[in-house]
């Protein structure tokens, strides 16, 4: 197992190069839900494709499964080219050896749980005794062994999703695709299933590609997150990077809550930046070489990185008015206004901080991440060693 894992690390489980998929709408316009996507997914890793609805994340997943027919590019799985427009290769879905868990569960209603889980094994022409054993194992693994004889209609949503998971893992696929599998189960069950899914993935070592629009889910599950925007990958990195060092305002805004303070770059020194804004100078950090003096920029500040104090303290400190505070349990969110009109959210772990009226908002320099104001402006080629690590 260990040897197998280390051998797999050398070679990405999935390698997508320049993948394009567009649709022609009835009215003649063309949409391109997958627009020149290049993505490398390490063997045994858990990658989340995250984005709002319509960003193309599901289409990308379906291209990997072979359920969509891409217009161009290449997909390699485990060293085998399964799609290549230039070489004319398109391995059909049933020969790609992937597992998939669908949003609707997609359990066959006319088959028992056992028959559902056995189906992919039988499709691969396994020996009967082995099928029985693998089905039992898979059902035990997801904790629904006692449901083997039931029909899907007799199960709860959570149970159905477990069975769907068992069906995907039973044939020991090295790649399993998840298309928003937890969006139909209720919140409590969802949390349970997330944890179990992670444990299962760690235990079995398959490569997971998981589509969701829920950024909290992406954070919990993803070893790496690919944030998608209108068919393109806006950012691909570890959750901490994506959250702490978003490459664009789009990502900053989509992942978590972000306060934005717009201004002009007064001075850049390496990674240190000073921004002139409506609320005065803001000191922050930026990726080396991303900003130039005089450029329009935006300071991104996470609500939990800001501090509320009664007295002014340190750099980046502004007088603010707390309009109202909302108690969420583990934390409290304060809606404040800095200066004349800058809306600014601060979240604090301590509900005692919940006070209305005048106070000071301050943020440490390394927690102010400055980005070019225009998301479409070109970013210098990202050398990982030159990028600022998340704080």
């Amino acid at each position, binding site marked *: *197992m260990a040897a*197998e894992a280390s051998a797999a690390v050398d070679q990405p489980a999935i390698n997508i190069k320049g993948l394009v998929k567009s649709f022609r709408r009835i009215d003649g316009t063309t949409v391109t839900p997958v627009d020149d996507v290049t993505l490398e997914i390490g063997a045994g890793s858990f990658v989340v494709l995250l984005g709002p609805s319509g960003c193309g994340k599901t289409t990308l997943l379906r291209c990997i*499964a*072979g*359920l969509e*027919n891409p217009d161009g590019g290449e997909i390699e799985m*485990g*060293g*085998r*080219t399964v799609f290549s427009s230039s*070489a*004319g*290769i*398109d*391995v*059909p*879905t*049933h*020969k*790609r*050896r*992937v*597992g*998939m868990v*669908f*949003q*609707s*569960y*997609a*359990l*066959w*209603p*006319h088959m028992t749980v056992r028959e559902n889980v056995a*189906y*992919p094994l039988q*499709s*691969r022409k396994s020996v009967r005794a082995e099928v029985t*054993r*693998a089905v039992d*194992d*898979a059902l*035990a*693994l997801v904790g629904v062994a006692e449901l083997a004889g039931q*029909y*899907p*209609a007799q199960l709860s949503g959570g149970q159905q999703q477990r069975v769907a998971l068992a*069906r995907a*893992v*039973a*044939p*020991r696929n*090295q790649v399993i*695709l998840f298309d928003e599998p937890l969006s139909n189960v209720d919140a409590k069950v969802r949390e349970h299933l997330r944890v179990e899914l992670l444990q299962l993935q760690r*235990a*079995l070592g398959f490569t997971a590609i998981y589509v969701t629009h829920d950024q909290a889910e992406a954070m919990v599950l993803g070893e790496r997150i690919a944030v998608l925007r209108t068919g393109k990958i806006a950012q691909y990195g570890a959750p901490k990077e994506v959250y702490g060092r978003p490459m664009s305002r789009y990502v900053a805004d989509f992942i978590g809550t972000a306060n934005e303070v717009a201004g002009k770059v007064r001075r850049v020194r390496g990674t240190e930046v000073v921004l002139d804004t409506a609320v005065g100078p803001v000191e922050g950090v930026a990726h080396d070489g991303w900003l130039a003096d005089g450029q329009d920029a935006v300071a991104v500040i996470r609500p939990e990185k800001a501090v509320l104090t009664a007295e002014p303290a340190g750099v980046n400190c502004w007088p603010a008015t707390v309009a109202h505070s909302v108690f969420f349990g583990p934390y409290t969110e304060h809606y404040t206004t800095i200066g004349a009109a800058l809306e600014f959210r601060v979240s604090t772990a301590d509900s005692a901080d919940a006070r209305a009226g005048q106070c000071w908002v301050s943020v440490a320099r390394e927690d102010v991440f400055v980005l070019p104001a225009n998301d479409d402006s070109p970013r210098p080629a990202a050398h990982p060693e030159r990028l600022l690590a998340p704080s």
Partner: protein
Amino acid sequence: MTSLLERPPPQDDPVHPRWVLGSRLTRIAPSKWVIGVLALLVMALVLVPIGSMLVRVFFDGQRFTLSTFRDVFTNDGLYPILGNTVLVVLLGSACAFVVGSLFAWVNERTDARIPWIGELMPIAPLMIPAIAVAIGWVFLLAPKTGFLNVVLRIVLEPFGYHAADGPFNVFSLPGLILVYTFALTPYVYVVMAAGLRNIDPALEEAARVSGKSSFSIFRRVTLPAIKPSVATAWFLLGAKSLTMFSIPVVIGTGAGVTVLSVYIVRTVNFIYPPQIDDAMVLGLLVLVVILVLWRLQARVIAKGHFATIGGKGARASRVRLGLGRYVAWVLIGAYLLAVTILPLAGLVLVSLQSYWTPAVKWASLNLNNYRQVLFDQPIISASLQRSLILGVVTATVVLTIAMLLQWLVRESPGPVGRAIDGVSKLPAGVSSLVIGLGFIVVFAGPPFNLATTVTILLLAYIVVHLPEATILAGGALGQVGRELTEASSVSGAGPGRTIRRVLFPLMRPGLAAGWALVFVLVIDELTVSAMLSGNSNSVVGFQLLFLYEYGLFPTLAALATVVTAISLVVVGTVLVVLGRRSGVQALGRTRSGS
């Protein structure tokens, strides 16, 4: 758990060379090719006969000519037939429209609603074939010997009615229109009920608040609001009544009213030498009229300005009919009697007699005619057997085709899929009259020489019933969420296995209903049977006409009763079986895919 972890991963076999052949084409799996070839064959079977007919009408060898048209339209005998046709189509449609709309309104918009009517109406014509209703009414309302006339004469005698025949005569224009109305009403009902169900009740409420009477609300508010349904109903009425064959051939002939459809069929198969070219020109005329009606309907629907579906649950208010309810119930009850019990009673009574007489000798009633039909008369029993076999084979083949083609349509969106879908439904618009003619042109002569064979009947039945099968299979397929078949592909199952293990079992209830429908339609089929069948390889429809022509009424009654019984049993069985299973039908609930 550990065993699962320890089992070695599946061997990576190299990419199969078949998949590295060429560009896009490699995407399609082998069995998809088989289905693709099948699709081409089916499209050819639908399009070639129609196309050949058009070519033959307009071309004399290589030369474009309209001489056939000139011959047909300069024949003075044609115009009375066209006049009759217009008259019967208009009057029959108008009566059916009034009755059908009224029933739909009563059942959908008033407090006189009878829930099961809505379910019975669409399937009533399936259970009792139109030919049986027509013959049944002949037995009831023939001027001298009609059972109902005899009863009426006895009732009316004290009031001074002493004629030897009458008071009614089914062999008349009103008689013909009456039976047309019986047959056409369900089509209007189904379309109008759907339209009425969907309009916003607030429209009617507003009118009621303005102090209008119920009828005036129906005429001034409700009807205009459902113009699209009205247009669809009239399109259906026009197409159905124009191509209607069983009723005019039975009643119109006796009444001396020949309509176009009957004339076409006679030109082909009942006069010698057959005038195929004339028939085709007239078939083309039918086709053009249906096309025009279809365009008109499409234009009405496209114009818009209709009240669209109101909010859900806005169903509460129904028009209160008061005592009018009883009138409505009597009317509906009378209609149901008229299309079921009454004609059946006529049929059964004659089938038990040695010869058709209104002086029923109850003691001498016997089952001899049934013995004749089922056993003793080899030509009739053979035709019955042939029809049953054709029904089974046609239903099986056409539903298999429809299922596979609909699957192909779903798997290949875009122009190809739309074309396959369109051609599958085309025969419904073309009518079986035209298809029958096309089959004569292509298959009757060389090189196929299939005239009057079972094969030509089978092929024609397949084409004629392809639209019904396609619609039902498409509906059944729609119930199977896309993700269910995708999950099968992802599980490593090729198209063949996906169809066998997932698609077919899940579509089974819908396919069963479709199978029964096509089976019944084939057994009851008259138009194509009359055109393509001959005495040597006759089917039931042909025999029914033959027996009628020769006035062998008791045998005819027995055969019609047998056919009706078969239809009733098959449709009833499907209803019972699917009804009982409906609880278990996970289909609706597990409808997946989003």
